């Protein structure tokens, strides 16, 4: 029996604290961090400390993290360069009566970095920026309707939250039209049907959904979308919140070869510091300035300093290439393991934002068992959501994880 098989974590303190939380916090833990999205009893709920690509939960279990805080961590937890820049800014000023010089520096950096950016605007969360982008599109076009792709996640504002969640009413979606991913014909049909009424089209750069394979854009898809948007005066909005700065420093529009009018960033932009950004073409800048959109902490200077440092560090260290190589190592290793144990594994998504599932396991029963067993051995694998690789993951971490995965796959083989 290998070392990985011997050590199985328990989550008693997580469960105990959760019980306490559930009495005073709706849902105990809410949103995408909710335990309902994993397999309670086999996954940690609360973090005690984190460094590099690892974190320790309140039970003292250490994990190699393949969620990276659901994306924000990209250079490793407690990265000294980023934290150093943040600390230096903190010593000067953070949330004050006026923005700081760092806001202009960060905007300048983004404008120089991203080919389709002539200006930048900042918020706190990805959802702030996707909503802001739809408002800019409406202000620019004087039209009401927004087309989105069925299943794409753009945050929690009512316009993009599916019906069925608490407080969402049918009127919230009155001007939202949905099309299938990669279906240019349907897009064209909807555009024809509502000609002159559509303000914007918003989409993620590729189809990264939960409970399913990640699907890359079909050849010609983005080219076709861009052409139709230009012909019809529709603002093309790229929601690059999840993929931004993990595939390319120039944004996923550049990576996939198209030119969005507006692009939204968050997650990897500041290695965990709270900031998001929307960048856009100069033609939309007047309209953008007319949208009233703000928040108490939106000009805070520490996250801006952290963002600047993160972007520079990503560029200086070749982080994008490293994440691609590390992610490839993990995915190839998992596929090989599956093949060795007679369980075919399908991998999908870019290596830096990968996902895997057992090809035969349509309903994720095996996946839930497998990811539980890997996680309680020390590598956090989310069963339903795409994973994230960081530049702090090293070859040795992947090897350790593959040991956890091998032990887990043996358990799976016994139980199915």
């Amino acid at each position, binding site marked *: 029996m290998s070392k990985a098989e011997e050590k199985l974590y328990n989550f008693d303190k997580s469960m105990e604290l959760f019980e306490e939380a559930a009495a005073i916090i*709706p849902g*105990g833990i*809410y949103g995408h961090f909710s335990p309902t999205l994993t397999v*309670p009893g086999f996954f940690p709920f609360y973090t005690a400390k984190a460094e590099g690509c690892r974190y320790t939960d309140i039970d003292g279990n250490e994990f190699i993290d393949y969620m990276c805080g659901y994306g924000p961590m990209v250079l490793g937890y407690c990265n000294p360069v980023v934290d150093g820049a943040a600390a230096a800014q903190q010593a000067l000023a953070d949330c004050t009566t006026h923005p700081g010089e760092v806001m202009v520096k960060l905007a300048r950096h983004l404008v120089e970095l991203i080919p389709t950016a002539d200006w930048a605007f900042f918020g706190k969360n990805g959802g702030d920026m996707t909503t802001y982008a739809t408002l800019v599109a409406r202000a620019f076009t004087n039209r009401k309707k927004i087309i989105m792709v069925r299943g794409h996640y753009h945050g929690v504002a009512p316009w993009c939250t599916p019906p069925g969640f608490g407080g969402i009413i049918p009127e919230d979606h009155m001007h939202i039209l949905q099309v299938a991913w990669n279906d240019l014909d349907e897009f064209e049909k909807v555009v024809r049907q509502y000609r002159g009424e559509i303000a914007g089209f918003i989409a993620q750069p590729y189809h990264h959904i939960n*409970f399913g394979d990640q699907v890359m854009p079909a050849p010609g898809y983005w080219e076709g979308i861009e052409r139709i948007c230009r012909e019809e005066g529709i603002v093309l909005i790229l929601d690059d919140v999840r993929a931004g700065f993990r595939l390319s420093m120039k944004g996923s529009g550049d990576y996939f070869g198209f030119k969005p009018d507006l692009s939204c960033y968050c997650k990897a932009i500041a290695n965990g510091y709270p900031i998001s950004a929307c960048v856009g073409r100069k033609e939309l800048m007047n309209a953008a300035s007319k949208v009233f959109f703000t928040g108490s902490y939106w000009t805070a200077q520490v996250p801006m300093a952290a963002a600047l440092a993160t972007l520079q560090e990503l560029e200086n260290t070749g982080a994008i290439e490293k994440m691609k190589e590390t992610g490839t190592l993990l995915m190839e290793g998992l596929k090989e393991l599956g093949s060795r144990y007679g369980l075919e594994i399908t991998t999908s998504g870019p290596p830096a934002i990968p996902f895997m599932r057992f090809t035969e396991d349509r309903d994720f029963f095996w996946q839930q068992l497998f990811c539980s067993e890997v996680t309680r051995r020390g590598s956090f694998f989310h069963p*339903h959501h795409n994973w994230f690789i960081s530049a702090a993951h090293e070859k040795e971490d992947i090897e350790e994880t593959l040991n956890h995965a091998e032990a887990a796959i043996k358990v799976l083989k016994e139980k199915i």
Partner: protein
Amino acid sequence: MNRDQSMVLARLHLGAILPLLEDVAAYDPVVGEAIAGWNFALQFRLSGGDPSTTLVFEEGRVTAYRGQFKGYPATLTFKNADFLNDVFQGRTKKSPLPNLAGIFKAKQLMQVDSVLGRLEHYLKPQPETLADPETFAFCVRVTLYAVAFGIKEVGEHDPEVRPIVLNLPDGTVEMRIEQGPAAHLTIKGGSFYPQRGPAENPNAILEFADLQTAWDTFQGNIDTFSAVGSGRIKLRGFIPLIEGVNPLMDRLAYYLSD
């Protein structure tokens, strides 16, 4: 409650609640005794014929059939949904008019109210009813079935939830209580097919740790997200199916809360 909602509630009474008399008749000696000699079919229908449910009494057993029923059963016709709901909720002393076949069963029809009253005895039980463990287990079981049948009526007929239903993936959800009863619901193209008992090949499983957790969930006395986190409710398989059904359960609770 607007007209659409009143109609959904009427469908719930006929499609989700009335069929539970099958279970109540098999369990409850009071009902068993009342229907012992009954051998006839009794149709409950809204004026116009939709919805309708027919109860066939035979050898002390009850079998429920939804929709059109062949033959010429004794029939109680309700003039509108509001009236049907008032009758089922005990808000009126007026009765629906029977057809000619019903008039020939006048003696039995006079007892129908008390038989139907036993449904409420188990679906809206008093604390003393729940104190008996066996009866409590039965209450949970029939409520589980009511939920499965009720989701169908709400999902197929409530315009408020149609946008949710249209986005629901096809598949079968099994709802079960650990070491207890189960029901399942197959969803196909926006239509629902509920059944008592476990599913052969469920795509998703919603499992309650025990009867009390199930009961508390059905009564709306539990934060279900917290219950999942603490392991009292387990979700397995293709969870989007359960996530899709969950708001329908909430909507069902809204209708049945009165």
